[in-house]
């Protein structure tokens, strides 16, 4: 990936979004990323959509194991407790 500001293309930028959001980009690349999204509507929108995606994913409730499995585990706990 190029470190020169002018040369970071949109196609390259979309592959750097996660590194950018994770704070894992080296300073120079971060600067060219910021510069790019300031001037590019498509990429600005793309980064916004990634943030919206993360927020939406965060609003999901967690799946859980079946009540039967949980009951079996509590029974196993009692066995363990009695034998300990």
């Amino acid at each position, binding site marked *: 990936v190029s470190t020169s500001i002018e040369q970071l293309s949109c196609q390259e930028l979309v592959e750097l979004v996660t590194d950018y959001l994770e704070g894992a980009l080296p300073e120079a690349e971060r600067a060219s990323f910021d510069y790019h999204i300031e001037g590019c509507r498509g990429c600005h929108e793309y980064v916004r959509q990634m943030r919206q995606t993360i927020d939406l*994913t965060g609003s999901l409730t967690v799946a859980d194991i079946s009540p039967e499995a949980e009951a079996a585990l509590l029974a196993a706990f009692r066995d363990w407790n009695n034998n300990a």
Partner: protein
Amino acid sequence: MNRDCLHAAIVSQFAAALQSPRYSRRVDDAAVIAALRARDERVFAELMRMYNASLLRVALIYVATRAVAEDVVQETWIGVLNGIDRFEGRSSLKTWIFRILTNIAKTRGQREGRTVPFSALERPGAVPEAAVDADRFLPPDHERWPGHWASKPEPWPEERLIAGETRAVVERAIEELPPAQRAVISLRDIEGWSSEETRNALGVSETNQRVLLHRARSKVRQALEDYFVEAW
């Protein structure tokens, strides 16, 4: 502190932690370990409720079916109970629990003849995968704007972002991900774990964790875009 007080303190910590799923859960390991060693069933039950969903997702990296994954989760808890008296606290309790799970799940997966996870976790970048289809961009030999958007993303309708149907799209997209990507996005973005916690639970490098997260998030974004574009 007597046992009931200790228990009350732990339960209130759990409650507080569970109410802020977007943040790393700071439950006091020492108190939980002490309670488990004291055979406190209520603490054990809380701990299970807190981790079962994540354990299940991680197990599914290694084994093929949900039924087997549930078995693995059960065996994990039995391993936790059997090992807790010897647990030395060199890692966090959470990391330790996930290591037990990973070992059991790997053995189980091998017995089933599954070989997927090693390349998926250790070399996720081996097979290139674009975050956005190449045909959304102008060709590399374009005279003025190589690699620039040919069809750029359009803003999503705000009012539809909060609709239940939209969440179902996200859920479906996550279900369809390869297991390693699914596990990483679940731990990071649904459970709100830090990258370090996720890395430790899965035993992957920082870079590989990020590659998996990137691919997972990119696909979920794409699924949302497809959904909104179709609906217009």
